[in-house]
């Protein structure tokens, strides 16, 4: 039995959720929760960076993406979470898995979650430049059901701009590489401003990632960014009960 077989067994994956917030004065209100997956406890794959590198090398992004979504939707009474849910999906999965929309809608139906509350965050998209037609068709189908699309790692990778044009994301996630330390780095501020303007011009909203220092909020807010994610607002946690979707005003006080 391979590690892949082990991690695809029911219950092998652990789902954690990290808030994406919108600021309302001094309070941070949950806008969405990003689902983050941990591999089987006690294995090398418990660390997400090892897990997804292993999955990539196995060429198993498709089957593992589905397993991660299923695990997340079955781990908690998310239907009462009252915030959007964001799931990471490899660009290759969207491009190659013709049944992904049907699978996702079925899982949401079983979990009694409205598709209009779902964000699909496309990851590892630098290698997907050649899959544009299938990607477009699949994304169009997902959007017909109200599912929103986010593009991860904005500013990194080779095919970012092409993907932005092809995917037309609803959300642009500005990578932590640009956000962390931006309060003291005019160059990072310039990049953030450029990406924020680009997102506005393309009709999307920006999510600033990796915020651990509240001084790094100012460069983002100056550029009109309204959505934020990072340890400052909450670390990933297991959503074992809908009550754990706690008001983020508590975490910031």
């Amino acid at each position, binding site marked *: 039995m391979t590690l892949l077989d082990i991690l695809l067994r029911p219950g092998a994956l652990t789902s954690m959720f990290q808030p994406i917030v919108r600021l309302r004065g001094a309070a941070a209100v949950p806008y969405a929760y990003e689902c983050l997956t941990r591999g089987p406890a006690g294995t*090398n794959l418990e660390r997400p*960076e090892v897990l997804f*590198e*292993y999955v990539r*090398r196995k060429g198993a992004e498709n089957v593992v993406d589905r397993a991660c979504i299923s695990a997340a939707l079955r781990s908690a009474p998310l239907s009462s979470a009252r915030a959007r849910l964001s799931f990471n999906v490899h660009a290759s999965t969207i491009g190659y898995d013709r049944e992904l929309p049907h699978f996702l809608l079925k899982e949401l139906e079983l979990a009694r979650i409205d598709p209009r509350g779902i964000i699909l965050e496309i990851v590892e998209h630098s290698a997907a430049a050649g899959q544009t037609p299938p990607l477009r068709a699949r994304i169009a189908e997902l959007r017909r059901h109200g599912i929103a699309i986010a593009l991860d790692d904005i500013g990194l990778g080779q095919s970012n701009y092409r993907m932005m044009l092809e995917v037309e994301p609803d959300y642009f996630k500005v990578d932590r590489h640009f956000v962390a330390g931006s309060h003291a780095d005019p160059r990072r501020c310039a990049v953030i401003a450029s990406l924020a303007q680009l997102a506005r011009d393309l009709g999307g909203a920006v999510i600033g990632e990796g915020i651990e220092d509240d001084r790094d909020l100012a460069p983002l807010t100056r550029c009109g960014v309204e959505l934020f994610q990072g340890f400052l607002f909450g670390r990933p946690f297991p959503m074992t009960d809908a009550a754990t979707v706690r008001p983020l005003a508590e975490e910031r006080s």
Partner: protein
Amino acid sequence: MKGRLMIVDDEEPIIFSVHDYFTEHGWEVDCAREIEEAEALAGVNEYDVVITDLHLTGIHGSEGLELVSYLRARGGAKVIVFTAYSTPEVERVALERGAHAFLQKNTPISHIAQMITFLTRSDE
């Protein structure tokens, strides 16, 4: 801590014996049973030494040597091939791919440790 070591082998007795020996002698040891697992670990961790078999479940022949090439391309780690299936040709290719040593599976662990001491001291 002497350093970080990875053992790549699909035989549990080998994994356990190498892990236990080098842990007791002050190493931080990671274990991988598949090539993809080893590559994933090497992608996120810096290893001082990697001890690897060439024949793992599901792979054979030159596929095991791909790991040696990958590890050498990543830099840093001393790569020791530890295999029961050796021929002069396999040994030659492994060393060409960048392995620092080529040992038979019946080599006592204490001898492997001596080889590691030699290989890592050559950097000092």
